[in-house]
C-alpha cells in the first residue's frame, strides 16, 4: 500500500491544479478571460498558468464578456477546448446572448456536426461581502437553457474533479464556483487528485434517517452544520450534495427521500422561479407516496442580491434550515 501525502488545500488551489493538469495533458486546452494572465485572475485561480504555458494558452482578453465567450465559440469550432473565466456572476450577463443563442445550441443546430467543448467558469454566490453585482446566484438561468451542463462543487476534491470533467466534456459546461468556498480548506492530496463520477451524479454527504436536505455549492457546508445542530433536536438529517444541476440526478435524490420521507431544498438564489421549485416538483412527482410532509424550500429572498451589510439576513443559514426541518413535523401537528 502506498502512502499518500494528504494535506490541507483550498478549493482555489484545487481549481488551479485542475486547469494546470488539463493544460498539460491536452495542448488544445486554452484559458481566456479578463485578468487571467499576468494577474492570475482576481481570485488567483489561473495563477501561474500564463507563465507555465505561455500567453497564447492563458490569454488576457479585452474586457468584454460577449467577446470572450464569442471568440471561445470560434476557437472551439477550430478544434480547441477553451476554458473561459467570467470574473463575477453578474459580469457574465453580457455574454448571455452568446451562451443562449450559440454555445448551448450549436451541436443541435448542426445536427451534431459542430459540438462546442467550452467550459465557462463563473465564480458565484454571496457571503464574501461583495458589493452590488458581485454576489448573484444565476444558476436558474443556466439550468433553463437546454444544451448546457451546469455543475457546482462544494468540496475541494469535487472542485478538481468537476473542473477536469467539465474540460473533458464534449459539450459546453457552466461550472459555478462558490466563491465563498474558494478559501475553504480540506485534506486533499494534490499529488494524486481523483476524478469524479461522470457529470450528473449527486452524492450523499451525510447519511441520516429523519429527513433529507437537498442542496449544492455554497449551501452544502451550511446544511452539514445544520444537520449537526439538528441532532440536539433528535433529528438525524441526510444531506445530498447535487454537484450537477443539469443533468439532474433524480435517482440519488429520490432514493434518499424515499428513505427519509421528508425533504428540504436549500439554496441561496431566490425561491420564486428558482432551482428549488423544479427540484421540489421532481421529488413530489416521484416520491409522493413516500412523503410524510410537503417538500419545503429554504432559499434566498426574492430580491435583488442585497448590499453586503444586509446579506446575512438574506442567505439561508442554519437557523432558517432548522425552522424548515421543524415544519416537516406538520402531519403530527395537524
Amino acid at each position, binding site marked *: 500500500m502506498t502512502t499518500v501525502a494528504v494535506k490541507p488545500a483550498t478549493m482555489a488551489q484545487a481549481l488551479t491544479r485542475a486547469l494546470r493538469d488539463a493544460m498539460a495533458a491536452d495542448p488544445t486546452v*486554452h484559458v481566456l478571460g479578463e485578468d487571467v494572465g499576468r494577474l492570475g485572475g482576481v481570485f488567483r485561480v489561473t495563477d501561474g498558468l500564463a507563465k507555465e504555458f505561455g500567453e*497564447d494558452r492563458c490569454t488576457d*482578453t*479585452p474586457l*468584454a464578456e*460577449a*467577446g470572450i*465567450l*464569442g*471568440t*471561445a*465559440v*470560434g*476557437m*472551439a*469550432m*477550430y*478544434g*480547441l477546448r*477553451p476554458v473561459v473565466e467570467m470574473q463575477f456572476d453578474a459580469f457574465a450577463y*453580457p455574454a448571455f*446572448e*452568446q451562451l443562449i*443563442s*450559440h454555445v448551448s*445550441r*450549436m*451541436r*443541435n*443546430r*448542426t*445536427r*451534431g*456536426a*459542430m*459540438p462546442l467543448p467550452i467550459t465557462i467558469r463563473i465564480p458565484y454566490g454571496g457571503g464574501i461581502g461583495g458589493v452590488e453585482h458581485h454576489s448573484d446566484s444565476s444558476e436558474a438561468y443556466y439550468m433553463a437553457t*437546454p*444544451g448546457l*451542463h451546469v455543475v457546482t462543487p462544494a468540496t475541494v476534491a469535487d472542485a478538481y474533479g468537476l473542473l477536469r470533467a467539465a474540460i473533458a*466534456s*464534449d*459539450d459546453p459546461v457552466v461550472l459555478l464556483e462558490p466563491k465563498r468556498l474558494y478559501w475553504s480548506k480540506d485534506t486533499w492530496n494534490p499529488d494524486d487528485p481523483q476524478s469524479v463520477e461522470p457529470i*450528473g451524479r449527486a452524492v450523499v454527504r451525510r447519511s441520516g434517517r429523519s429527513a433529507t436536505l437537498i442542496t449544492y455549492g455554497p449551501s452544502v457546508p451550511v446544511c452539514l452544520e445544520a444537520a449537526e445542530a439538528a441532532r440536539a433536536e433528535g433529528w438525524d438529517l441526510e444531506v445530498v450534495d447535487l454537484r450537477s444541476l*443539469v*443533468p*439532474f*440526478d*433524480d*435517482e440519488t435524490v429520490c432514493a434518499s427521500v424515499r428513505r427519509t420521507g421528508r425533504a428540504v431544498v436549500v439554496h441561496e438564489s431566490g425561491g420564486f422561479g428558482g432551482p428549488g421549485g423544479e427540484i421540489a416538483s421532481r421529488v413530489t412527482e416521484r416520491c409522493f407516496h413516500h412523503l410524510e410532509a410537503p417538500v419545503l424550500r429554504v432559499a434566498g429572498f426574492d430580491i435583488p442580491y442585497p448590499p453586503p451589510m444586509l446579506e446575512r439576513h438574506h442567505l439561508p443559514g442554519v437557523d432558517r434550515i432548522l425552522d424548515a426541518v421543524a415544519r416537516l413535523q406538520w402531519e403530527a401537528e395537524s
Partner: protein
Amino acid sequence: MTVMEQRGAYRPSPPPAWQPRTDPAPLLPDTAPYRVLGTEAAGKADPDLLRRLHAHLVRGRRYNAQATALTKQGRLAVYPSSTGQEACEVAAALVLEDRDWLFPSYRDTLAVVARGVDPVEALTLLRGDWHTGYDPYAHRVAPLSTPLATQLPHAVGLAHAARLKGDDVVALAMVGDGGTSEGDFHEALNFAAVWQSPVVFLVQNNGFAISVPLDQQTAAPSLAHKAVGYGMPGRLVDGNDAAAVHEVLADAVRRAREGGGPTLVEAVTYRMEAHTNADDDKRYRADSEVETWRAHDPIALLERELTERGLIDEDGIRHAREEAEELAADLRARMNQDAVLDPMDLFAHVYAEPTPQLREQQAMLQAELAAEQDGGDR
C-alpha cells in the same frame, strides 16, 4: 492652497505602455466607394475572374427568384432575398481559399451556395426542417446566423485559433448595416484588432435594417469609418461592382493571410426586394428610389463591361442564363419533395449523451408515435 491648485504642480504622465500612433498609412477609408467596372482599373482585371463572377451573379439572381417563388408556394417559411446584392455575396465566396472560413448572416444564402454548399441544404433553415442543413466543416461555412453580428466574434476566435495552430487560414464574416449597431460587432472588431487576427469583416450596407434607414442607424460618415477607432483599416467599395468588391476583399484577405491583421470592408449596395416576403417595403421607401438603383444593377454593370471589352458574347450570356435556369429547375424539383423528418431527431443532438431527463421525454414521444402508428393501422 492645495498642491492641485498650484499651477503646473500636477503633471500626469501617460500610462507606461501608451504611445501616440505614428503610422504613415492612414486607416481612414476612401471618401467615395471604390469602383472598377467602367473605370480604367477594369483593364487590369482578370478576364476569367470577370466571367466567373458573371456566371455566379446570374445564377444567384435566378436562385433568389426561385427561392422567393418557393415562399409563395409554401415550400419555404421565409426567404430574405439578396437580389441587388449578388455582387457582395458572390465575391465573398469566391475570394476565399478552400481552407478559409465563411461566417454568413441570414441573408447570405447565395454566398453559402457560391462556396459550394448544396442549394437545398442551404435552404433547410428557411424551409424549417432543421436549423442548419449542411455540415459546417464540409465547405468551412459556419451556420447562417439569425441573431445579428453574434457570428462575428466566432470568426475572430476561429481565425485566432488557426493562427495559434500555425495555419494560414482567413475568416470572412458578413454582417448588414443594422448589425453594425450591435455590441457583438464592436467586441468582435476590437478583439480582432487587439489580437491582429486574420479576419475580414464585410458589411453589406443595403440601406435599411428592415425599415430603418442608415441615417437613423449611425452618425458615422460611413460604416467603413468605424474601423479607424479599432486600429484597423476601413475600405469603402461599390457593393454592386463585383470586380471592385472582389478586389477589395482579395486585398483584405491577402493582408490578413500575411499577418497584417483584420480589415473592415463596407460595400455600399441596395436591397431591391423587401426585407423578406413578410415585409411591406412600400411603407418605408419610394418606388423611385428602387428604380434609381435598378440603373446600377450588378449584373448589368458587369455584362456591359464584359461585352464592351469583347470578353463575352450573346452566346456566353445565354449560356450563363441557361445554366442558372437548370439550377433553378433542380432546386424547384428537389424543394417540391416533402422533407422526410424523424421526430426522434429532437433529442439526438442536444448533448453528446442525452440526459436522463431527455431519455424519459424521448421514451414518451416514442410511445406517442407508436400509438399514432397503431391508430393509423387500424
